[in-house]
């Protein structure tokens, strides 16, 4: 069976690896370079802390386990010459800075704990002992030992390199323009600006551009980009040991509001720089840096960690996170076009969820038992079905 994966970001790379390792003849196509879109413009989150109980949290819990295995496999396979994935189980620390925030955080963690998340409620004093540089006005905190971080671009490239070793062929700088179908309507090949690639299965893993691609393939999907900005400081002697964020982060990821939202996420990288994220705006694919947004992020970061006031900003970047109207990824077959599958819409969680998404895709394609129930992520789920246009 021949598979064409469209999109060489981390989700496409992880799926190509899983599919080629399952013995399928796999071709990856990207209109640009590999790992240069969202996978090179994000923070590398592998989080359970920001997920409300439900299918996405189940996916994240599976991902935490799978990344530990996958990182070891990749190191074993590619050797030390491969870029370091910098997978760090540093844990997350969510802090509230208002009394009502502290109460809300407690009830949120209780729900997560019941769903299998390891989380400890902390006093402000506990929080300060974990992160001594935190601002004094912390009212409550929660520690999530499962939260981890990895270097997203290195991870995407490593997964792709592994896919190549398993036989996948990668074509970059080739734009997919359409889908050729058999008489029964099923996928036969993808058409590109250079020719066509035969495919029994076509996987749309084009991240925030998956909506555009789906339309070109004849099966429109309501994927939209949400812009997120990240600030990076120069190397600093102070280390933020955890992923530290304020409690309103959860609200921001789940919101459909177009207005600018920021909530602070502060963490050190392996190199010693400090990353500050992340804003969320619905402004299309506009990659200009907006200083007002950067200023809002900086203000919140300084409020959380006062020492950052004197930190020097080295660079800022924006990335586009793919999301669907119901804020769940779509992983599975398109009900309208046999042979077409989607794996996109992971919003800010695609890096972490990529490997487990790939497991689901491989199981769906080969008919193997999936690691968890894929039904909530189906393209024809009730919360998404009304948004799917009927294909002629």
């Amino acid at each position, binding site marked *: 069976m021949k598979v064409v994966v469209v999109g060489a970001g981390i989700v496409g790379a992880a799926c190509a690896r899983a599919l080629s390792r399952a013995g399928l003849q796999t071709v990856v196509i990207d209109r640009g*370079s590999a*790992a*240069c879109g969202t996978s090179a413009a994000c923070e590398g989150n592998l989080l359970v802390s920001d997920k409300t109980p439900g299918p996405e949290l189940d996916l994240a819990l599976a991902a935490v386990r799978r990344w530990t295995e996958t990182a070891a496999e990749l190191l074993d396979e590619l050797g030390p010459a491969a870029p370091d994935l910098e997978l760090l189980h540093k844990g997350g620390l969510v802090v509230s800075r208002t009394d009502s925030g502290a109460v809300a955080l407690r009830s949120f963690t209780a729900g997560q704990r019941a769903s299998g998340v390891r989380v400890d409620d902390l006093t402000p004093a506990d929080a300060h002992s974990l992160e001594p540089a935190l601002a004094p006005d912390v009212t409550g905190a929660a520690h999530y030992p499962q939260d981890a971080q990895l270097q997203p671009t290195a991870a995407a*490239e490593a997964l792709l390199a592994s896919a190549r070793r398993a036989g996948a062929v990668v074509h970059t700088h080739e734009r997919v323009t359409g889908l050729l179908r058999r008489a029964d309507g099923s996928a036969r090949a993808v058409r590109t600006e250079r020719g066509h690639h035969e495919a029994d299965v076509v996987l749309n893993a084009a991240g925030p551009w998956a909506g555009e691609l789906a339309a070109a393939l004849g099966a429109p999907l309501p994927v939209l980009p949400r812009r997120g900005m990240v600030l990076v400081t120069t190397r600093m002697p102070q280390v933020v040991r955890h992923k530290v964020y304020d409690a309103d982060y959860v609200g921001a990821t789940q919101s459909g509001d177009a207005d600018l939202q920021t909530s602070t996420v502060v963490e050190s990288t392996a190199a010693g720089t400090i990353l500050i994220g992340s804003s969320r705006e619905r402004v299309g694919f506009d990659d200009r840096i907006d*200083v007002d947004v950067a200023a809002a992020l*900086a203000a919140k970061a300084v409020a959380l960690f006062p020492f950052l006031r004197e930190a020097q900003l080295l660079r800022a970047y924006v990335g586009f996170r793919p999301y669907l109207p119901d804020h769940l990824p779509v992983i599975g077959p398109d009900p309208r076009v046999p042979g077409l599958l989607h794996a996109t819409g992971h919003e800010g969680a695609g890096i972490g969820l990529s490997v487990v998404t790939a497991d689901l895709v491989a199981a769906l394609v080969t008919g193997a038992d999936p690691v968890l129930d894929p039904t909530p992520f189906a393209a024809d789920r009730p919360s998404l079905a009304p948004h799917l246009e009927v294909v002629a």
Partner: protein
Amino acid sequence: MEVLIIGAGPAGLSAARAARAAGARVRILDAADQTGGQFWRHLPGSRPARAERVLHHAWDDYVALRHELVEDRGVRIDLGAHVWAVEARDDGLRLQVAHGVPDGTDRPVEQLTPDRVVLATGAQERVLPVPGWTLPGVFTAGAAQALAKSERVAVGERVVVAGAGPFLLPVSTTLARSGARVVAVVEAAGNRRLAREWLRRPHELVGVGAKARELAGYVGHHLREWVPYRTGRAVVAVHGTAAVEAVTVMRVDDAWRPVPGTEERIACDAVCLGHGFVPRLELAIAAGCHLTEERYVDVDDSQRTSVARVYAAGELTGVGGADLARAEGTIAGWMAAGGSPDAPAIASARRRRRTLRGFAGRLTAAHRIGAGWSAWLEPSTIVCRCEDVTVGALRTVADTTGATGLRSLKLTSRAGLGACQARTCGRTVEDLLGHQLVIDGPGTDRRPIALPVRLGELASPRTHPREETNP
């Protein structure tokens, strides 16, 4: 109407004078604490010197221009003005300017939305890596020049000046006037290529005038002082344990590949490297200016960029030296201020620009970096000085990932991710991986945060244009 000029070097100051002549008010911003740019970089006011002109070309022109602008009530000069961001917004450009000392803390940030802008941000030196180039005692040629002209410090006692281009000669001359002994000037371009570009169609050189006199002066100095000017050669390694002790010079072929068996060791305590200049593009790129294929700001006959009401002049639009920068600045300032393109006021600047561009083209062709230079690298040679990424590490990452994207390669190798944000290594990384990389747009030159700013400064409320007049 006010014309905002960014950069107070030869191009920016000339633009200011012309914009005033055309009737506009002018505001000049420069990050340095004195005008003149790198070309007329000079001693600070606290260190007066009667014969400073001996270190400069066209010094009297500069002094007169500065005097005229400082005295003019229609001109406001803001020094210590660090433009750290330019935003191309739907309603025009917006600039963020931190006022104060370089890398200060709590500097007030002013937000500007100018009517007309002239970008005159100049160039920086391009330095090719060489084994040993991170040793203390290795400087850029521009550093040696700047330290000697504006600080009266010589970088060493026995100095080798090496690289390519006519700039090596004034550097060597200044070093000699600062008490250093220049033991060799090593120029990679060979005599045949130099002769071909410098001497062909001599009638075209008529009118180059001051520029040719300037160069002739430097050549005369080298002959008089017996400084060996070694062409067709390159410093291919720098040696030393704690600091520079010697260099290896080799003959190079037309593509700058070292010729085996030509090694020669020269003892020295400082090395000044310069392989040409690259424009300082970050503000122009952030403004949305279209770039040429050679990655200069694309301007039309009126020095207009692709962005409405934004002009560019000087090295930003093509490296050609101060005289060309002055001609371009004059045209840019005049046109930005709404002057007529056919006005007699800029006729002579147009003529000079034509002649000098031709001359600059020859110099560029003569001293262009040869494609074979990387043959002198060792796997252990550091490419990215900020992150200590070696040639070997860069190539290993590229080979392992097979990556074609610059963004991915930067993030996986860390080359270009450090404090200088690829200002030093960017073009080199692009060259070394050129066979594999697909570079779209501005490559490693895109830096939306154009200068460092403290998070506290970024977070503080920004002020609107400050109402101040010249001191």
